C-alpha cells in the first residue's frame, strides 16, 4: 500500500513539473531558426499573442516575375502613437526578390528586409515583392516587434516589448510538390524507428506470455526494465539503445551522402548539412559505439570473470539512464531546427561564438551527462575487474575481452575528466558568460583543442580496443586454438593504453600549437604501430595449426583483419608531417577513421553479436542470413570507404557542404572523375546501410523462432560458456563461485616479478581475518 502512495506521489510530482515546463518549452529561443531570424533585432524576448502581424497585398497564386506591392503591419502590444518609437519588423521570403519602397525599409540581400531607423515610429511599412520566374512554393516569414518606446536607440530598455511571428504561403501558377524539409524527414524517420522499437518491445512482452497480455502484467514488466540493476538486463538496454542510435546515425549519414552524391548539390542547405555531420559524429561515437560496447561489457565481463554481478549495480543503472536523457538533450536542438553545428570536435572559439547555433548549448549539456555516465561506468568496471575475479583467476588468466574492457575503461576513465572540464567551461561560457574561450578577453582557443584531444585520442582507442578483445576471443575459439601469445596480447593492449595519452598532438599538427609538442607527438604517434602490429600478427599466428570453423562471426573476424590492417596502414601516413599538411581535414582522414571505426569497431561488434547472441538470448542465429549480411556488408563497406582515400588526396575537404570539380573557367579544384566516384560512394553507402537490415531481420527471426542454443555452442573456455543460455540471475551463486583451473601448472605457485610485488603490497591472509 505504501509503495502505491509514494509511487502516485512521484507521478504527481513529475506531472506537475511537466506542466511547469511545457509553456516554457514553447517559447524556448531555439524554436526559431537561423536565416529567418538573424535579421530580427527584436526588443525583449517575450513572445506575445497580443501582437498580431499581417501581410496584405499578397496573391494566393502569383504570376511569373510580376511585382506585388505588399504592406506589412501589426496591431496590439505596447505600441501606441504617443511612443517615441513603436516597433519594427523583419520579413523573409524563400523565393523572389523583396525591394523596399521607401526609406523606412531596408533590404538585407534580396530575400530579407527590415525597418530602418526612420521606420521606427510606425506600425506599417510598404515594400515590393517580385515573384520568381519559375514555379516555387513561396514562403514568407514575418517577425513583428511591438515597442513601448522607453528604449533610446537600439539597446537597453527593452522591457515590456513584445514580438510575434507570422508565416504565409503563396502558390505558383502551376502547382509543384513541396520539397521535403530534411529535418522533417529525419524527425519522421527517428519517430518511425522509435515507434517500431516500441512495437517490437510490446511484441516481445506479448511473446513472453501471450495469455497475460494485460496492463496489470505489463506495468510490472516495464517497471522491472526501468528499475533493473541486473547487469544482463542493463546490458540489453545498452544494446537496444546502441542499435537504435546506430540506425539514427546511419540515417544522417545517408542524408549526408545524398547531399554529396553530385557536385554542387542543394538537397541539404549548408546549415542543415553542418548539423547533420555534427550529430552524425556525436551520435555514432557517444550514442552508438560506446553503448554497444557497454552492452557487451555489461553482459560478458561478470560472466567471464565469474562474478555474480558488477561491483556497484545501482551505479551501473545510473550510468545507463544518464544516456537516454543526454541523447534527448543532444537532439533538442535538431528537432527545433537549430542543432549543434560545430563538428563533433566542437572547436573553440566557434563553439562559444554567437554564430554557432543555440542548440550547441544543449549539445554540450548532453555531453556533460555522457561524461558523468562514462565516469560511473569506469569506476564500476575497473573495480569489478580488479576485485571480483573468481578464485584461481589471476590477472594473466583473464579472458582477453575482459582485459580489453579493463584497458578501455582505464583510458576512458583517466582521460574523460579533461573533456568534462572542457565541456563545463564551454557550457559556462555560453550560459553565464565566463571567458575561458573568449579570445578578446585573452582566452586561448587551443586550450579546448588540448583538453578535447587529451580525451579524444584515448577515446578513439576506447572504441577500438574492446573490438580487439572480441576478435581475440572469436579467432581463438573459431580456430580451435588458444590465442597465440596471450601475454604479449595483454602487454600490447596496455601499451596502446599508455601510448594513447602521449600522442594526441597529432590531431593538431596544423593548429597554432607549440611546435615542440608537435614534434614530440610526431615521434610518439609512430609508436602506435608497434602494439597494433603485434596484435595483428598474433591473430594471424593463432590460426596456424588450427582448424578454422567458418561461422558468421569467423567471417566478420577475418573481415575485421582485412579492414583494420588497411585502416592501420593509412594511419601511418598522418604522423609524417609533410604529408599530413596536405591530408589533414581531407577525405583521406574520413576514410582512415571510418576504416578503423567501422571496419574495426563495428565489424568487431558484428562478430560479437553473432558470437554471443546464443548466450544472450538462448537462440542460435541464422547462419544463412548471417553470411548474406557479411557478404553484402563487407563488399559495400569497402566500396563505400576505399574511394574516399583517393578523393581526399585529390583535395576533397572534410565537413564541406558541397564540392566542385574543375571546369574550363576554374581549374585547380577536384578533377572531373571525382564526381563519378562520389556517386559511386553514395550508392555504396546505401547498399551498406540496407545490408544491415539482414542483421536486424536475423535478430528478430531468431528471437521469435530460433533453434535453442546449448551452453557452449562454439567450444570456448571462459566462464560465460559454463552457465546456461541465457544465464540465470544472479549469474553465479555468490556463495559458490566457480573456480578457474589452469592447464599450465607452473603459474599457481610461482608468481612473476609483478606478482611478487603485489604479494608484498597485499593484505596477508591472517590480517584479512583480523580486519
Amino acid at each position, binding site marked *: 500500500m505504501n509503495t502505491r502512495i509514494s509511487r502516485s506521489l512521484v507521478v504527481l510530482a513529475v506531472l506537475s513539473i511537466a506542466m511547469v515546463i511545457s509553456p516554457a518549452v514553447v517559447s524556448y529561443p531555439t524554436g526559431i531558426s537561423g536565416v529567418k531570424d538573424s535579421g530580427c533585432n527584436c526588443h525583449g524576448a517575450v513572445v506575445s499573442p497580443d501582437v498580431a502581424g499581417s501581410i496584405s497585398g499578397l496573391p494566393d497564386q502569383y504570376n511569373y516575375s510580376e511585382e506585388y506591392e505588399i504592406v506589412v503591419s501589426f496591431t496590439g502590444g505596447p505600441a501606441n502613437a504617443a511612443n517615441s518609437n513603436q516597433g519594427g519588423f523583419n520579413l523573409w521570403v524563400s523565393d523572389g526578390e523583396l525591394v523596399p519602397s521607401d526609406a523606412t525599409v531596408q533590404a538585407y540581400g534580396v530575400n530579407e528586409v527590415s525597418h530602418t531607423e526612420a521606420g521606427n515610429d510606425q506600425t506599417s511599412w510598404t515594400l515590393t515583392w517580385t515573384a520568381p520566374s519559375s514555379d516555387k512554393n513561396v514562403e514568407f516569414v514575418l517577425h513583428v516587434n511591438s515597442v513601448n518606446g522607453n528604449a533610446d536607440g537600439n539597446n537597453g530598455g527593452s522591457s515590456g516589448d513584445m514580438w510575434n511571428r507570422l508565416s504565409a504561403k503563396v502558390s505558383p501558377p502551376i502547382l509543384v510538390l513541396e520539397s521535403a524539409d530534411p529535418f522533417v524527414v529525419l524527425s519522421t524517420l527517428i519517430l518511425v524507428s522509435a515507434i517500431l522499437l516500441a512495437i517490437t518491445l510490446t511484441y516481445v512482452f506479448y511473446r513472453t506470455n501471450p495469455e497475460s497480455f494485460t496492463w496489470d502484467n505489463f506495468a510490472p514488466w516495464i517497471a522491472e526494465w526501468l528499475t533493473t540493476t541486473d547487469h544482463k538486463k542493463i546490458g540489453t538496454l545498452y544494446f537496444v539503445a546502441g542499435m537504435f542510435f546506430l540506425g539514427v546515425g546511419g540515417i544522417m549519414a545517408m542524408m549526408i551522402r545524398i547531399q554529396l552524391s553530385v557536385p554542387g548539390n542543394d538537397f541539404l542547405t549548408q546549415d542543415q548539412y553542418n548539423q547533420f555531420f555534427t550529430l552524425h559524429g556525436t551520435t555514432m561515437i557517444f550514442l552508438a559505439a560506446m553503448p554497444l560496447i557497454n552492452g557487451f561489457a555489461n553482459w560478458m565481463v561478470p560472466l567471464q570473470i565469474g562474478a555474480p554481478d558488477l561491483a556497484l549495480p545501482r551505479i551501473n543503472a545510473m550510468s545507463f539512464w544518464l544516456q537516454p536523457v543526454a541523447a534527448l538533450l543532444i537532439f533538442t536542438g535538431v528537432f527545433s531546427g537549430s542543432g549543434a553545428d560545430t563538428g563533433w570536435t566542437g572547436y573553440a572559439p566557434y563553439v562559444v561564438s554567437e554564430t554557432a547555433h543555440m542548440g550547441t548549448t544543449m549539445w554540450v549539456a548532453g555531453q556533460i551527462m555522457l561524461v558523468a555516465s562514462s565516469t560511473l561506468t569506469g569506476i564500476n568496471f575497473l573495480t569489478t575487474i580488479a576485485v571480483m575475479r573468481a578464485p584461481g583467476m589471476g590477472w594473466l588468466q583473464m579472458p582477453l575481452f575482459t582485459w580489453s574492457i579493463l584497458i578501455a575503461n582505464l583510458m576512458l576513465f*583517466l*582521460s574523460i575528466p*579533461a573533456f568534462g572540464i572542457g565541456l563545463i567551461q564551454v557550457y559556462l561560457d555560453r550560459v553565464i558568460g565566463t571567458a575561458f574561450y573568449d579570445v578578446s578577453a585573452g582566452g*586561448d582557443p*587551443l*586550450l579546448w583543442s*588540448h*583538453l578535447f584531444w*587529451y580525451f579524444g585520442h584515448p577515446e578513439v582507442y576506447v572504441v577500438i580496443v574492446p573490438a580487439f578483445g572480441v576478435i581475440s576471443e572469436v579467432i581463438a575459439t573459431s580456430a580451435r586454438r588458444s590465442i597465440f601469445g596471450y601475454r604479449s596480447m595483454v602487454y600490447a593492449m596496455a601499451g596502446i593504453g*599508455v601510448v594513447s*595519452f*602521449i600522442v*594526441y*598532438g597529432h590531431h593538431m599538427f596544423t593548429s*597554432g*600549437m*607549440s*611546435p*615542440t*609538442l*608537435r*614534434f614530440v607527438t610526431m615521434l610518439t604517434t609512430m609508436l602506435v604501430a608497434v602494439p597494433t602490429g603485434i596484435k595483428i600478427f598474433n591473430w594471424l599466428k593463432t590460426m596456424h595449426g588450427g582448424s578454422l570453423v567458418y561461422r558468421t562471426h569467423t567471417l566478420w573476424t577475418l573481415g575485421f583483419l582485412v579492414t583494420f590492417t588497411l585502416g592501420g596502414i593509412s594511419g601511418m601516413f598522418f604522423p609524417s608531417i609533410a604529408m599530413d599538411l596536405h591530408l589533414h581535414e581531407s577525405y583521406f582522414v574520413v576514410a582512415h577513421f571510418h576504416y578503423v571505426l567501422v571496419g574495426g569497431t563495428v565489424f568487431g561488434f558484428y562478430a560479437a553479436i553473432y558470437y554471443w547472441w546464443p548466450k544472450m538470448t538462448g537462440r542460435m542465429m541464422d547462419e544463412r542470413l548471417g553470411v548474406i549480411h557479411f557478404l553484402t556488408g563487407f563488399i559495400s563497406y569497402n566500396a563505400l570507404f576505399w574511394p574516399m582515400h583517393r578523393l581526399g588526396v585529390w583535395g576533397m575537404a572534410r565537413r564541406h557542404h558541397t564540392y566542385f570539380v574543375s571546369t574550363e573557367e576554374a581549374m585547380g579544384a577536384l578533377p572531373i572523375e571525382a564526381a563519378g566516384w562520389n556517386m559511386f560512394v553514395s550508392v555504396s553507402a546505401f547498399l551498406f546501410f540496407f545490408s544491415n537490415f539482414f542483421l536486424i531481420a536475423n535478430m528478430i527471426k531468431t528471437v521469435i523462432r530460433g533453434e535453442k542454443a546449448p551452453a557452449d555452442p562454439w567450444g570456448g573456455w571462459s566462464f560465460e560458456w559454463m552457465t546456461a543460455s541465457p544465464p540465470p540471475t544472479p549469474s553465479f551463486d555468490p556463495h559458490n563461485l566457480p573456480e578457474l583451473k589452469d592447464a599450465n601448472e607452473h603459474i599457481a605457485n610461482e608468481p612473476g616479478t609483478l606478482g611478487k610485488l*603485489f604479494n*608484498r*603490497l*597485499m*593484505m*596477508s591472509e591472517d*590480517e*584479512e581475518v*583480523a*580486519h
Partner: protein
Amino acid sequence: MASYKILGRDPYWMNFYGLMILTLIEVLAVGYELPEERIFIFSNYTLMILTVIAIPKFIMIGMIFMHLYGSPDSGILTVTALFPAFFIIIMILFIGLTHPEATTGLPEWCRPGYYNI
C-alpha cells in the same frame, strides 16, 4: 583505524596538531609579505614556501587520515592512489605548460640539421 602511535600519542591528534601548525606557517608566510605600501606583492619566494609546505600536508593527510600508512590494506591502496601520477604529469606538461606558437618557432633541437643529418 590506526594501530600505531606517533611520539607515543594518538596519531590523529598529532597529525591534527601538525597540520594546524603548518597551515599557520603558510598564512603567516603570506602575512609577512602583505603589501601595505608596495604594489608588487609576491615573490616566487613565497610560492616556494607555499609549495614546500603543501607537500608535507599532502603526505600527512594522505598517510594518516586516509590510512595509506599503518593499515593492512595501505600498500595496495597507495599504489592505486599514485596510479594517475603519470597521466597527471603528461597533462600538466602538455596542456599546462605549452603555449601556442607559429611553426617558424620550431626549436633548433627538433630539426634534423641540429644532428647533422
